[in-house]
């Protein structure tokens, strides 16, 4: 899957959009993975089971991918374990402070033309481009 994959990426994007529409239709929720995951960590009555079930569905979907399309899991990470640890923590705390990630703000929020989501997406995309450039071309690795 290295290099531009226009057909697979379009099909995958359509499936992601359909899944988000399905969740909205079924129980009226926005498919924001950071919010769904974080909600499990601080459970509230009547608002937790659907999250666990959705994440369970994701894991089974991931197993299907591993079985039928294993090249999608040939993961290469080009930074140190310390950077992975720091990056993970920043993604976790940042998506909660900012109320969403690539799915909640990026897919659903931009799809709804919600001003908060469009601002958030513009910010995290440009910061990610800058950060990636900084550590891969300026400091020469992390």
């Amino acid at each position, binding site marked *: 899957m290295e290099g531009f994959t226009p057909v697979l990426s*379009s099909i995958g994007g359509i499936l992601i959009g359909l899944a988000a529409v399905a969740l909205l*239709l079924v129980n009226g929720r926005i498919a924001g993975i950071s919010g769904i995951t974080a909600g499990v960590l601080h459970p509230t009555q009547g608002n937790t089971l*659907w999250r666990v079930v959705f994440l369970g569905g994701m894991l089974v979907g991931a197993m299907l991918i591993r079985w039928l399309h294993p090249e999608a899991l040939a993961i290469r990470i080009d930074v140190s374990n310390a950077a992975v640890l720091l990056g993970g923590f920043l993604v976790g705390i940042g998506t909660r402070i900012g109320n969403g990630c690539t799915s909640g703000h990026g897919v659903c929020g931009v799809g709804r033309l919600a001003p908060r989501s469009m601002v958030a997406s513009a910010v995290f995309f440009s*910061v990610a481009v800058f950060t990636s450039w900084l550590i891969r071309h300026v400091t020469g690795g992390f």
Partner: protein
Amino acid sequence: MKYLAIFSSGLLFAVGLGVSGMTLPQKVIGFLDFSGENWDPSLGLVMITSAGVFMLLHRRVLRRPTPLFDTDFHVPTRNDIDGPLVFGSILFGIGWGMVGFCPGPTVTALVSGQTQVWIFFVAMVAGMYAEGSLAVSNRLLTQRGDTVDG
């Protein structure tokens, strides 16, 4: 029936991420890194198609009086651009640009069993937990003080 449908939606979401290639941080970085040798537009195409499908179809769903298995739609209604929205998105952007993982692909990639994916996931959950605990204690503090709007 409700939970089977929610389960299927999660399953479809993860399959979509896998098919699109977004489970691969090297493809995400291949997009974010404009100055790289072989720029990969895939992530941009995934965002356009997924947000496009959601844009076209969510209006029809929201025209219904209720969702299929709930009494209300839980769609955010706020429109104010505040500090936390921008600050949180900056932190997220730094972490995403460093590694190339965001929450959905991270959850999906867990089945790869790769150590670095799990390190990222555990750290991400710790970050979410830290913010959630801060938010809960802030809420308790404000509730304890005599606030007018409660």
